[in-house]
């Protein structure tokens, strides 16, 4: 043995390693060919996933886009929105709104069943809406879509297939909002038996009426959906009918965008979703890229008017004039995202004020003048402006994780501001620490974009009692505009009210819009019939593989 050692052991070790590698190759290749086979209808989508598996799989509770991306395929809504922005029937055949705008009567389809065989009826609608309103659900998005617990007064069952949604005061966005996945419907059986498990989700728990059934959830890894063979109740906006064409839809969570694109290019996934602009150039030539600008509030900087230096209008104006937004957005997003001009994005139906485009410009001289006028005339050793011994500075709190692009943007703005003697201090905080400053509003500015199909999202952000009033704006005139807009049913009148708010913000400089984010999805050539919802998310009901 010892004498053989030298000759035998190295090959033995090599043989062991190569066996391991070869086993891997063999089965790896086998897996790939099966997914590329034209005969099967098993599609894989790679998504970023955020933290969907950490208790964000309850459709009524979640405020995470990735949850909607997954669950839209599992849950249907009362109504849908077609490509022209009109509200069309889905689980409701028809509806009637009372004169005073306080009662919405829906006539439901009578042939709809949940994945577990339960019947969809007025009682199911009532039970679901009660679940949304229940404080124990901790609903963020779904509840605000109903108008919040102050406006929404509950549902009333008239007969098996007629239900009335009651309001305390008119809420114009309601019908449109009812089209969102967050107001989808759980099987009554699930709401009665598995209420506490909904956040974690799972097969037999995440049960809706949609074209796909949740058959497996592996936390941190993937969600497997299978076709609902009984499905026969698509929305009027759908171009497909009957059950979905795909047999299975596997949604793999791959947080790294380059890995998602790699999976698409190598054929392991057929759709790569939630892509950043930088990933578009990596997408191979045999795939197509779809980009839909998000409706709602663009990515913006929210200046806290009620806290520090931004209480002074001249400082806010000087701050804005010193930002070279055009240059920053162009270089950082490779031309994939447009620079934003208004606090509503161009794709928000009917309400965008295009007159704000080019309404102000990057102008360091003007910025210097604004700061001088505000009394920040002296400079310290580092070149920053000072007044009464204090440096002109603002603290920007950012919620982690921060994308590379948004970090570059912040760096660019820091540079712009340093040129005019303004120190921008950036604090990148993990969620818990962010809240410590966010809740008492002890910061100068923060940033986000906020999706929404209706101008009413401005009420959350700019009304003195808005739950997201980051700027701590207290303006009775703006409150009045926003309150009037939410109760007015005439679409033109509403549009004009929201335009007033957009213009007011442009003069007052409370929120500085920066860029219009887009939902970017890449799909390989063999995917057909993929459609995109009003907020740009891919929908698989009509999709097939060729």
């Amino acid at each position, binding site marked *: 043995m010892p004498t053989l050692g*030298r000759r035998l052991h190295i090959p033995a070790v090599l043989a062991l390693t190569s066996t*391991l590698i070869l086993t891997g190759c063999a089965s*790896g290749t086998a897996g790939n060919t099966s997914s590329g086979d034209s005969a099967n209808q098993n599609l894989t989508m*790679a998504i970023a996933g955020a933290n969907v598996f950490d208790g964000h799989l309850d459709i009524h509770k979640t*405020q995470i886009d990735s949850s909607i991306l997954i669950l839209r395929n599992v849950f249907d809504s009362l109504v849908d929105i077609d490509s022209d922005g009109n509200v069309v029937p889905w689980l409701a055949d028809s509806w009637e709104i009372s004169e005073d705008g306080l009662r919405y009567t829906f006539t439901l389809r009578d042939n709809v069943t949940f994945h577990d065989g339960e019947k969809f009826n007025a009682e199911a609608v009532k039970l679901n809406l009660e679940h949304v309103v229940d404080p124990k659900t901790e609903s963020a998005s779904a509840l605000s879509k109903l108008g*919040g617990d102050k406006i929404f007064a509950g549902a009333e069952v008239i007969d098996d297939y007629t239900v009335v949604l009651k309001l305390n005061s008119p809420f114009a966005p309601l019908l449109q909002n009812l089209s969102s996945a967050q107001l989808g419907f759980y099987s009554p059986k699930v709401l009665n038996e598995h209420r506490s498990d909904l956040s974690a989700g799972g097969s037999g728990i995440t049960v809706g009426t949609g074209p796909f059934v949740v058959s497996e959830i592996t936390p941190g890894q*993937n969600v497997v959906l299978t076709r609902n063979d009984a499905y026969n109740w698509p929305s009027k906006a759908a171009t497909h009918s009957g059950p979905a064409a795909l047999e299975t839809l596997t949604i793999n*969570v791959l947080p790294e965008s380059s890995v998602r694109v790699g999976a698409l290019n190598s054929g392991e996934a057929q759709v790569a979703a939630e892509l950043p602009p930088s990933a578009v150039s990596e997408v191979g030539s045999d795939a197509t890229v779809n980009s839909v600008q998000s409706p709602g509030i663009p990515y913006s900087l929210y200046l806290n008017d009620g806290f520090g230096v931004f209480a002074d209008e001249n400082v806010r104006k000087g701050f804005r004039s010193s930002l070279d937004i055009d240059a920053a957005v162009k270089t950082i997003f490779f031309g994939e995202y447009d620079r934003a001009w208004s606090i509503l994005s161009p794709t928000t139906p009917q309400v965008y004020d295009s007159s704000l485009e080019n309404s102000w410009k990057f102008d360091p001289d003007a910025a210097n003048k604004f700061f001088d006028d505000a009394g920040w005339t002296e400079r310290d050793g580092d070149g920053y402006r000072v007044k009464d011994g204090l440096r002109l500075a603002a603290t920007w709190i950012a919620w982690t994780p921060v994308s590379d692009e948004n970090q570059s943007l912040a760096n660019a703005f820091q540079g712009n501001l340093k040129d005019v003697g303004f120190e921008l201090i950036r604090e990148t905080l993990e969620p*818990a620490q962010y*809240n410590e400053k966010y809740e008492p509003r002890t910061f100068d500015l923060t940033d986000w974009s906020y999706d929404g199909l209706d101008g009413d999202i401005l009420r959350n952000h700019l009304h003195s009692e808005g739950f997201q009033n980051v700027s701590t704006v207290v303006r009775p005139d703006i409150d009045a505009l926003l309150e009037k807009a939410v109760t007015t049913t005439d679409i033109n009148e509403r549009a004009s009210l929201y335009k007033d708010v957009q213009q007011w913000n442009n003069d007052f400089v409370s929120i500085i819009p920066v860029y219009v984010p887009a939902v970017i999805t890449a799909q390989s050539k063999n995917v057909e019939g993929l459609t995109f919802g009003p907020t740009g998310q891919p929908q698989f009901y009509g999709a097939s593989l060729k």
Partner: protein
Amino acid sequence: MTRLGARILGLAVVIWGAITLAFFALKLVPGDPVDVMLGPHSQVGPEERALIRTDLGLDGPLWQQYVTYLGRVLRGDLGMSYQLRKPVVEVIGAQLGATIQLTIASLLFVAVFLALGLFIARTPSLRGLLGIVELVAVSAPVFWTGLMLLAVFSFGLNWFPVSGSQGLPSLILPALTIAIPVSAVIGQVLRRGIETAEEHPFVETVRARGVGPTRLLTHHTLRHATNGTLALGAYVAGSLVGGAVLVESIFGRSGIGRVALTAILARDLPVVLGVVLLVAFVFVVINAIVDAASGLIDPRLTRATVGRAS
């Protein structure tokens, strides 16, 4: 019997210490679990928030929360996750399989790499080259290694699937990503140990008996060098249980690492403490095994203990 008793007592003390440290560390850093859970876009008012806090047992004084928690752990109840509202045992249990697979596969690769390194190192002229390879492997960030392996073997050659849900083949790249830096670190220590052993006079005696380099390694110098390496290996194996978070997110795998990270960020105390408990337990068990193994590999240790005991 007393040695077993001492071991169990030691285990209890280590786990108690780990839990206590983690508990107070998490309570000391700012951030409220309920606020994080609800997010900045939530409309839930202060009264409802207070209700949720009461519901989760977060309203009492700190010491009371601590005592309640310890009491529950003693009864074998790790509590419920704040975020998922599921028993911690279930949350961790669901991820444990993936972590065990990855850890075992990584350790197998480490063993293979170490063996390979040892046989190469028998030729002194190749040792310099090996040292350079080790240095590169140690310095390369896991993140980079993982993406490079994916770029070459998954995207380029199409040999392995990208994501971690497809059985054995999907285990190989993540395991390699972990094994490369780990085997380089352990390899360096092991080789230095062997070099030190080779300086001992007994090596000359062994060689003079006509023993070849392989037997010299396997029967003599390796045994001398193994102890430090084993201790290091035990540490690495233990940290893999909770520390593979980067690899898990690159390859889209489930696992304890990601559970731990998100739980810490969300201040989901019961889950964090559950992971700490698990990792502490694994450390203690592995160390016990290593202690026993060291005695077998290096009889000097056992004799010394016996000598002291008598």
